[in-house]
């Protein structure tokens, strides 16, 4: 079996190396991605004028390829659901495989808890900044959501999982993650209701009349907020389940 795996890896790897010879040279001005008729040049030249979003990456991610990003968010949601499903399927909930894990016997360390109390608000504030400022500087829903989720995970590491679950219980986190996708898809359907295509932000202009270009920018912000909700909740749910074998007590 090991030999078979090695042979498969070698064949796939040599095929990939062989195929990479057909790539255009790095930074080649005549390659399809860089030549004038292609989309990338249009993104660079037109994206600011059309969306009023200085960060082109966000403009492409949340506007030009908004449909793609919506399903990326759905993938994260499904990953969290799948982890819960697999871990609750393995054995009975009260008797995990491979022995029991001890519940936190000692009280959490004073210094660690106080440090976390100092640091976590700053992390969360920065995460909100990253989400809200995603179309002016690097960042956006995914990064900000992961950072917000990480602050919850830090609390779980410092005080034990039950303390963190008291702040954000698993059912509530799952509802929150579904709300994120509903915000994203709902904004798309709102565009349809107002007469456009799915996720065609220009048609939401009547809601906040600041011009069609600004409507793109607002649409991106709302979509990023939806992504951040989903990512925050799912990151925490994945950690809570994996660190406690799906039992949601004890844990690290």
């Amino acid at each position, binding site marked *: 079996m*090991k030999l078979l795996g090695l042979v498969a890896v070698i064949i796939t790897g040599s095929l990939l190396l062989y195929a990479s010879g057909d790539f255009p040279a790095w930074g080649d001005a005549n390659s399809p991605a860089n030549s004038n008729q292609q989309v990338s040049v249009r993104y660079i030249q037109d994206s600011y004028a059309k969306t009023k979003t200085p*960060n082109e*990456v*966000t403009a492409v*991610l949340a506007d030009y390829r908004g449909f793609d990003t919506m399903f990326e968010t759905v993938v994260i949601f499904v990953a969290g659901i799948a982890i819960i499903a697999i871990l609750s399927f393995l054995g009975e909930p009260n008797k995990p495989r*491979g022995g029991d*894990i001890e519940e936190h016997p000692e009280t959490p360390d004073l210094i660690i808890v106080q440090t976390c109390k100092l640091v976590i608000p700053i992390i969360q504030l920065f995460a909100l900044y990253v989400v809200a400022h995603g179309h002016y500087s*690097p*960042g*956006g829903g*995914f*990064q900000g959501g*992961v*950072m917000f*989720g*990480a602050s919850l*995970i830090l609390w779980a*590491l410092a005080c034990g999982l039950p303390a963190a679950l008291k702040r954000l219980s698993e059912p509530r986190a799952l509802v929150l993650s579904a709300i994120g996708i509903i915000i994203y898809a709902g904004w798309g359907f709102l565009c349809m209701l107002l007469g456009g295509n799915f996720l065609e932000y220009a048609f939401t202009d009547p809601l906040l009349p600041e011009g069609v270009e600004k409507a793109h920018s607002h649409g991106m912000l709302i979509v990023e907020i939806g992504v951040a909700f989903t990512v925050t909740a799912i*990151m925490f749910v*994945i*950690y809570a389940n*994996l*660190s*406690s*074998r799906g039992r949601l007590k004890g*844990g*690290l």
Partner: protein
Amino acid sequence: MIWQFDIIILLFLVVTALISLRLKDLLGASIVFGIYSFLICLLWAEMGAVDVAFTEAAVGAGVSTVIMIATVYNTKRRSKD
């Protein structure tokens, strides 16, 4: 873009990737994998893909390392193969 810097990071990248594959101790392997994520984040930041570098630093080096360590804690620490 400083190509000497690129070469050094790429060298470390390959070394950490090989180490994390060869280590029998899964806790060590996941920590080395976190280092790998930080290095590739550096490489991306240096090549100008700041958004991707930010995602890699948050997801790859931050949360996924914690999640992997939590999983190792609940399974076996030694790898069998």
